[in-house]
Every structure is written in C-alpha cells, then in structure tokens.
C-alpha cells in the first residue's frame, strides 16, 4: 500500500506554483533542514487579496505536496481568509497525511502565515486572525 494518498502524490509529482516571486510583497520561511523540511513562501498582494503565491520547498513528498496545496488554497483569497488556512485543513484537502508526517512536513500554512505577517509588518497594518496562535507549529516539535 502506498504511503501517500493519490492527492498527495499528484501534488508532489506535479506541484503547483513552484518558484520565487522576485518582487514579492511578503516572504515567509518555516522549518529547517535538520528536521528534513524547509519551505519559503512568496506572496504578491493586490487589493487585500493574494494575487500570486509561490513557494520553494526542501523536503519529502509530503512537504512538497503540502506547499503546493497551500499555494493553491491561498491564491485569490483575501488576507483574512488566507490566515484561516490551518495545517489540519491542508491535510484534509490532501485526503490525509501519514501520522508521522503531520508535524514535520505540514508547515505550509505556517510559512504562508509568516509571509502574510511579513507583508503586514512592512505595511504597518493589522490583519484579523493573523496573530491568533491557532494550531501553529510548536517550536522544537520537529525534534521529537
């Protein structure tokens, strides 16, 4: 039985929105190569909406699929809507992730949130829901 769902494999083999936005409005990094996964999200904002989202990911199949899914979910959303994307929503959209991958690889939503925070700080604006802890990736959890 394959470890990953068909949806995960599809997003891993054919990731959407890979790359860098040269003049990004916000950049967010999450993870580190020690735990195996690292993601960078780039966003372009127009009229309070994510006009473009791109990512770069170092990591396993799940990490790539999560990044791709997050980028797809976020694109076109308002900033307030985008910060509501949580790791569990991402996992749900991917039709599940292996249990042991859930914490280590499911960092896309946090990376996106960091990019949005970067944008908010630059602009000096507040975004509803941005600072809520929600189910953020806990520091150090990847070392378990």
């Amino acid at each position: 039985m394959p470890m990953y769902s068909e949806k995960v494999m599809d997003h891993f083999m054919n990731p959407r929105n890979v790359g860098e936005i040269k003049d990004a409005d916000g950049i967010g990094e999450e993870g580190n190569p020690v735990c195996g996964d690292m993601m960078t999200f780039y966003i372009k904002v127009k009229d309070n909406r994510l006009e473009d989202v791109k990512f770069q990911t170092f990591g396993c199949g799940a990490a790539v699929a999560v990044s791709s899914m997050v980028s797809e979910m976020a694109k076109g959303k308002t900033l307030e809507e985008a910060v509501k994307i949580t790791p569990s929503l991402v996992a749900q959209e991917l039709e599940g992730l292996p249990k042991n991958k859930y914490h280590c690889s499911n960092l896309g939503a946090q990376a996106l949130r960091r990019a949005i925070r970067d944008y908010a700080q630059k602009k000096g604006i507040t975004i509803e829901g941005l600072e809520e802890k929600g189910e953020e990736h806990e520091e150090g959890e990847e070392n378990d």
Partner: protein
Amino acid sequence: MGNAKPERRVYLDYVATTPVLPDVLEAMLPYFRDVYGNPQSLHYWGDAAREAMEKAREQVAVLIGSSPEEIIFTSSGSEANNVAIKGLAQGQSGKGKHIIVSAVEHFSVLHAARTLEKAGFELTVVPVDKYGFVDPDEIAKNIRKDTILVSVMHANGEVGTIQPIAEIGKIAKEAEVLFHTDAVASAGNIPVDVDKLGVDALSLAGNEFYGPKGSAALWVRKKVRLMPLMDGGVQEGGRRPGTENVPAIVGMGEAAELAVKDMPSRTGKFSQLRDRLINGLLSAIDHTILTGHPTQRLPHHASFCIEFIEGEAMLLMLNSQGIAVSSGSACTSRALKASHVLIAMGIPHEIAQGSLLFSLGVDNNEADIDYVLEKLPPIVDRLRQMSPLYAKFVKEKRG
C-alpha cells in the same frame, strides 16, 4: 510524470532484502509440503526435518569457516544481534559490566547495548572517521579491566564501509575480551571467516544473500557463555528455544552454498556495475558525495548524498520511474531522524537529508545502471529547482 507505468523496473535495494533464488525456493518447498515434522520429534518426520536442518547448519558453517555446532539459527539478523549483545553481556556479567560498540552499528546492536546500559551495564560508543571507519586504536584505548564485550559491525549497510575487523579482533583477543561482529550486510556477499576475523560471535542473515526472510543465524565460538533471551525448550542447544523454522533454515543453507560457489563471479559483476554507477552518477550530478569508503566497501553497494534536496522526494520520483532504492534521510525513517551513521561520519544534517543508497544484485545488468543514470539527473534537477537551499546557494555563488 506520475501514474504512467514505468518503462522498466529496476530493483536496487538488495541490502533491504534480496529475492529468494529459484534453487533456494525449490530446496525449501518440500519442507512445507512433505517433510513438515518438528526436528525435535523422534519419528520419521522429525528425523527427516532434523537431517535437513543439520545439512543447512553445515552449509552455513562452510560460508563463515566455522564448525556447524557453533551455529544458532534465529528469525532475523536483529534477533541474532540481540542474542549476541544481551546474551554475551549477561553471560560475562560476573567478570565486568563494560561494553564497547561503534557509533555506526545497526540499531539492533546499538539499542540492545543501550538497553543493557539502562540495566546497569556501562557503555562506550566509539566514534568513526569520515569514511565510517572505526579506528582499532580507539577500541584499544577504551578497553578497561572490566570490559566484557566489544561489538563492531563487519560492513555497514548504509554506507558500505568494511571495517578492519581482523585488527580489532587481535586487540580484543590480547585483552581477553569477547568480540562480536554484525556481519548481516557482509556475510554471503564478501568472504567471511570467523578465525581470520578473530571474532567470538558473528551475526548473519539469509535474506541478505538470496535466502528467505526469517532466516538468520548467530555463530558463537565454542565454550563462550551465552545467556538465552527466551526461556523454553532445548532447541539450538537451549540458546534459542522455539520450534525451528525448518523451511527457512533449509533455504538459508542452500543460499549459503550458492554464495560460496558464486561469490567470485557475483563480486566481479557487482563491483563493475557499482563502479559504473558511482562514476556515472558523480560525473552527471554536481554537488554529490559518495558516502563511505571509495574502495573498502561492499561490492554491491553505492551510497551518496546529493546536496540541496531530500532523499524521500528522490526515492518517490525514482519509484515512479520504476527504480527502487533506499535513503537515510529523516523523512524516510519512521523516527524522522537522519541516519545516525551519516551523522556519526560528520556529515551535516542538511546534506545527510540528501542520502540515497543503491545496492545491487543478481538480476541487475548494465542497462539497469544506465537507466538510473538517465532518470536520476532530471529528478535531481527538478527537485533542486524547487529547493530554497539550492536557490540560496546559486544566489551566493553569483555574489
């Protein structure tokens, strides 16, 4: 890429397990169907099963240059290692409590030693160099009056490095300390002779040399005291109770005999294919390191770290092209930790994540290697184009 059926299927994961050779399977079948007796039984069926088992014991003994009566059949290499480490340590606990193992041992040795440590034994884990070599002097330096056991693996399954076991054997003998070697990755693949290696105990597994899974053995030199892990009957001299797995044992015996006969031709073929893979891969993909020693390595083993990308991602993409390999990256391990072997060799975590290991076997040919050399570089390229580490590297290089 994706769901299409691959052009070719290439198995390059023989260190994970080998297939069972047709002759081995044929040898095993009667012991499921006809000769199904319990070897401990004193009737016709028991006699026939016992006879087959004793023949297999001789075949395995020939493979490692030992006496047949010193072979204890077990269910896996891990079991053999556990029986060796725990059984030998407990058998000598009257003499002392200190054990020495290397940092690159298989977990069935390393964790068994840790378990003993929790039970009051003292453990020294000796380091390795960048090739994964244990320095024999390091063993000598760490042997104390109360040292009762040294365990250093013969060859490492992750990086292929073959350890200087004979040298360590001399040191252990001089110090009158028992010496065990985990030869699971090496036995049946390179010459193993217990006397030349100077060991007192040695583990091996049939499914590393075309025997079935569930076939393995521990060899323990005569008169060495070993406490059994399990209590039970008289099987294997009481050192490993439980009804013997006769078909598996017969299969391991047959595989051992074939290994003795075919080792020179297999080694010649494998090392040629291995070098084709190593040279081809290193020249096709930049920022790639060969892990383990370039020459002192298993003939059927080639292992690498490919920088800026992660092993599981490569493994999955290779799988979609029909190529089966392993990786020591954190993401491929259930514990989500990078290979302790690569880390012990001083390879930084982010590079260890790019671990990829290929192991060759009897079904491989040059076309298989060329297929890998054709399919892997574009996969690496694709993943690097996705990688923030590669993007950073490229930017820094440009200045």
